[in-house]
């Protein structure tokens, strides 16, 4: 995998961490998955799984955005620049701490670790429920990239599994998001703080 492509995927991921608008973030993760689908053109099964998953999830999430219009943006409590800083720091830490993963290219390995780090930071620092779902999608996009970079060419089955799993999880998450929105008037995980010991 070329360095430029890996960096492009990473830049899209970083965009999700700092973006304010939900629709923009949905577009970024969808674009990321579609880029991966194009990259997988030599393995039609994997490419098809990635493309279908990207489009289905993108449409589902955009539909949810339109159905649950927030009266005002859900504040995350951590400023976008700081979120971006955390994300880059964690990605660098992963790259430094984790030795070689055994993928086909070192650029891809760094890209995988960065996307996983960005996903974790998105879930940890965003309180908007939809952004937390997008954090999981980011992690899974990183895993999809890892599967495409296997020497053994078994990526189609893995992409299919990831696509199935992610669609299932996202569908359930959407059910919860809509109920949380109906209950609290905002898709804000910050409102979910009654269970403490």
């Amino acid at each position: 995998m070329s360095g430029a492509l890996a960096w492009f995927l990473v830049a899209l991921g970083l965009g999700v961490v700092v973006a304010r608008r939900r629709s923009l973030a949905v577009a970024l993760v969808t674009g990321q998955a579609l880029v991966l689908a194009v990259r997988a053109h030599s393995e039609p099964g994997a490419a098809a799984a990635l493309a279908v998953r990207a489009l289905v999830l993108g449409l589902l999430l955009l539909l949810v955005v339109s159905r649950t219009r927030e009266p005002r943006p859900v504040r995350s409590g951590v400023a976008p620049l700081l979120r971006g800083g955390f994300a880059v720091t964690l990605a660098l830490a992963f790259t430094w701490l984790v030795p070689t993963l055994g993928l086909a290219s070192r650029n891809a390995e760094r890209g995988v670790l960065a996307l996983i780090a960005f996903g974790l930071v998105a879930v940890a620092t965003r309180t908007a429920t939809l952004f937390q779902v997008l954090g999981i999608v980011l992690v899974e996009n990183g895993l999809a990239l890892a599967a495409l970079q296997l020497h053994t060419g078994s990526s189609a089955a893995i992409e299919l599994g990831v696509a199935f799993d992610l669609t299932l999880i996202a569908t359930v998450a959407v059910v919860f998001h809509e109920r949380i929105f109906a209950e609290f008037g905002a898709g804000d995980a910050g409102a979910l703080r009654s269970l403490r010991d």
Partner: protein
Amino acid sequence: MTSREVLAVAAVALPALAAVGSAVAPRRAVGALATGGATLAAVAAGAVAVETLGRPGTTAVSAWLVVDPAAGILVGVIGAVGLASVVVSPSYLSTVTRSLVRESRIPRFYYSLLFAFWAILAAVPVIGNLGGAWLLVEATTAVSALLVGFSGTPRALEAGWKYLILTSLGLGIALLGVVLLAATAGGGLDALSWQALARVPAGGQTVLIAYLLLLAGLAAKIGWAPVHNWLPDAHSEAPAPVSALLSAALLPTVLLVAWRSSRALAPAVGTATAHAVLVGFGLLSLAVAVPFLWRPLPWKRLLAYSSLEHMGVIALGLGFGGPLALAGVVVHIAGHAAAKALGFYAAVPLLSHEPRAGRHAVGGVARTEPALAATMGISLGALAGLPPSPLFFSEVLIIAGGFAAGRPWTAAASALLLSLGFLGLAHALLDTLAGRARHGTQRGRSDGMRTVTILAAVTAASLLALTVAAFWLPGSELAHNLAAELR
């Protein structure tokens, strides 16, 4: 297909059919269909357990199916708890006032999800491939998250959301481990079968990283500390019959995947390393759980923290290895399932008897509802490890297994933590049954008490039988086979 494989497929297919049937059946027929389906599915699961435990030396293994004694124990546990959960469900459903779906759809939605959860759970122990196991475990998250949030209350939504997000993230990390293993093993999905993983070449750094990622990710689903945050919330806010399935069946089933991974990859990462990871999670879970067992907690939350403790104990037993510790693990999984499920079922009459019990510790139940107190006493006494509870003997076996495995300090630390946990739960037991009722407590009738009393009698008999089994198991062919597979 051998008869053993046919039984295993039936144990998965029957609850799956019941899920479809519950979704499409007329509303009035759903209850009867659920009871019938659960009975058939439990019989099939019981047959798998009897067949595998009766002939522990014989194992049906293929690239996609493994029906060994370990699978038999878990399928049997899932069947028994599944049936009991379906039996208790009408009492729970009679108390439901709101849900994620419209009132007219509640029974169909509930039973179809419950059976789908059961079917996917039953498939996990018998799947012969790590990739398949990962996919099934992730599928349990999707289905069970809907069950956790079933009541649609703000607290249930919070619990369901935390559970969905945290376990999905954890399983994402585990998937990275699976992908790396696929890269190392080579040869596509077949390379992820338990048999093929055992042939992964030793010494590679990538395999060690993959193993650590896999275990860390699965830990989030098992509820091992320090990634257990979802567990007390999900167990306390889910419908009681679902909490029973989550604690008694889901956690040990995912733990089986961790054990199979550890067993398969031990030659590649080193047996000592593979076991040390399990022991580390076990000790940490015990250390985190014990302080909570000393606090006055609502009944279901107390049971949830007890699950954290018991998953730690099982991890220790698997990490110690050897016939003694593994015999203890077998007894512990079965005993924990019986006692914990009964505890959650008791929550159904308890919450109608004392509605405050959902958010506060209860006290003095024996004065106002002796049958309920007896049920709660059997459950909590057994979970605390009060003799003759089988969990007392299983913990002794596991600690002894630790000494036998040459880990005296770890075994001693575990014994100390278990003693502290025992004291905490014993105090909770006394307070719950004979303590003072909280000021302003309003107590009413206990819905579903008859069903739960019958289950309490069955559970008490099962627990005594398990205690007897705990004396026989250490020298048995079953324990030696489980230990031999580890070497």
